[in-house]
């Protein structure tokens, strides 16, 4: 048997066939520039639509009117005037609503994900309830909980609960057979298996549910304010809408969407901290 070693590292006399992978020019544009571009196109279209009277101003204000109002609302908020109070109320509703949704969603999620009874006998009803227009329940909450923030908290929680249930249940199902067997061979009780293995394993999907829920909780609070009074941001929007003050409606909504984004970001941040072992995926928003 003969062996042979190549050490022929004499410099190549022919030219190298090194080639470059193509990258589109678009890939080289910085992200901020792209975002700005989309923003500019959007504003331009908006401006054109309003400028040429394609739609009445009391339905769609011009970008400029909206900007002016954004500044006005911003000043009002910063100087701690009445809008700050309203914002504070809405934020409280969102906060407590989310807390409540997490509590209920998590509990139901564990029941549904962990017990055959929950999955077979409770989940179908939860799905059925989720397909109902939840708005219709607002008066019920008002009747029970009054016109204070409680009824809005309830509606916000109601809307945000379902995704958390689904996330938790799906997460509990994600425990692989190896981990289950391992825990069984260790003689772990059902409770230990749940606490020490299934729940931590469910966390990534729990957070997916929390992200979807975080968007819903905002919608819930505002809807609650629309239908059940109170003195929050929803009331400001409602008043502005009834006065046909559309620029105000738009700027209030924009502030709400900023808050919504902030909550979403907060949940994502919490996820990165708590589920520190989860590898980053290409993020595509809502589904995380």
């Amino acid at each position: 048997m003969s062996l042979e070693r190549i050490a022929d590292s004499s410099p190549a006399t022919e030219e190298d066939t090194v080639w470059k992978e193509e990258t589109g020019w678009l890939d080289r544009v910085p992200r901020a520039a792209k975002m700005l571009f989309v923003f500019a196109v959007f504003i331009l279209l908006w401006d054109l639509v309003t400028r040429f009277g394609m739609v009445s101003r009391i339905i769609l204000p011009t970008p400029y009117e909206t900007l002016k109002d954004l500044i006005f609302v911003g000043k009002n908020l910063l100087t701690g005037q009445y809008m700050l109070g309203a914002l504070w109320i809405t934020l409280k509703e969102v906060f407590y609503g989310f807390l409540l949704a997490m509590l209920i969603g998590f509990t139901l999620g564990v029941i549904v994900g962990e017990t055959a009874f929950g999955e077979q006998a409770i989940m179908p009803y939860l799905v059925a309830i989720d397909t109902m227009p939840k708005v219709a329940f607002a008066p019920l909450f008002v009747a029970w909980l009054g016109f204070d923030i409680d009824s809005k908290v309830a509606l916000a929680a109601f809307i945000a609960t379902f995704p958390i249930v689904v996330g938790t249940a799906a997460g509990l199902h994600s425990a692989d057979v190896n981990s289950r067997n391992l825990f069984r061979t260790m003689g772990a009780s059902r409770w230990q298996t749940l606490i020490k293995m299934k729940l931590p394993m469910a966390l990534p999907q729990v957070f997916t549910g929390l992200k979807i829920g975080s968007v819903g909780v905002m919608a819930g609070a505002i809807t609650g304010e629309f239908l059940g009074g109170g003195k929050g941001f929803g009331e400001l929007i409602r008043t502005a809408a009834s006065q046909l003050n559309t620029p105000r409606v738009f700027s209030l909504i924009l502030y709400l969407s900023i808050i919504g984004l902030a909550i979403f970001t907060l949940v994502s941040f919490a996820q990165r901290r708590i589920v520190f072992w989860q590898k980053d995926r290409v993020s595509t928003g809502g589904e995380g």
Partner: protein
Amino acid sequence: MPAAAALTETPPLGAPVYQLRNVGKTYARNAIKALDSVNLTLTQGSFSSVIGSSGCGKSTLLKIMSGLIPPSTGRVVLQGKPVTGPRRDIGMMFQQATLFPWRTTLENIVLPIEIRDGKAAAKAARDKARALLELVGLKGFENTYPGELSGGMAQRASICRMLITEPAVLLLDEPFSALDELTRDFMNMELQRICTSRNATAFLVTHSIPEAVILSDVVYVMKPRPGHIAEVVEIDLPRPRTLDMMTTPKFGAIVEHIRSRLDKEAFI
């Protein structure tokens, strides 16, 4: 050279710790007969392997031995007591290391103690866990999270987790088959070293004939439909085994013998 197998059971080399008599298993309401009348005895400090084609019932056998599933017929006795569920004196290891990413290596290793005896006992077992980590060459990785361990390192940590409760027998279901072959050879030598140093009784499921031969005192050859032990091969290579032995003619002959017993059609 391997000779034809005798029909009688040889007396155990050490004291018998594990005894299976007539163990059978049918799945899916008696539709699938996974195991049929398996008999075997493991002796103290011995290393045995079971080899066979995919689906021949190896994992089923191991699950029954570990008390994860009940047999349909027959009797499983470990250290004089029948096995009727997961037991403390059994250590088990699976193909995947299955370390939990939210616990450090050390916390993973003391997990069985934590589950059986609570947090305080787990805390007390930390020194023991550190000693085990040193044994498998993972000193310094106590507070590392499993995400930062390589496949081989993770499997070694899971060996520690198995050993921390000082089980009388180790049941290993293809523990290293997810590793590449070079790493696997190395891990097998580690496994031998650990078993010897603790005088542990081991029972290994594998797909690899050389792996079975290099590690075992006895190799059980299983055949499917229904799963049964078709042949018992004693390996009288000297101990400790080294990877060099894999190139000796004797080793080659045993491998060849076992290979000839496994009909190829089963592996398509």
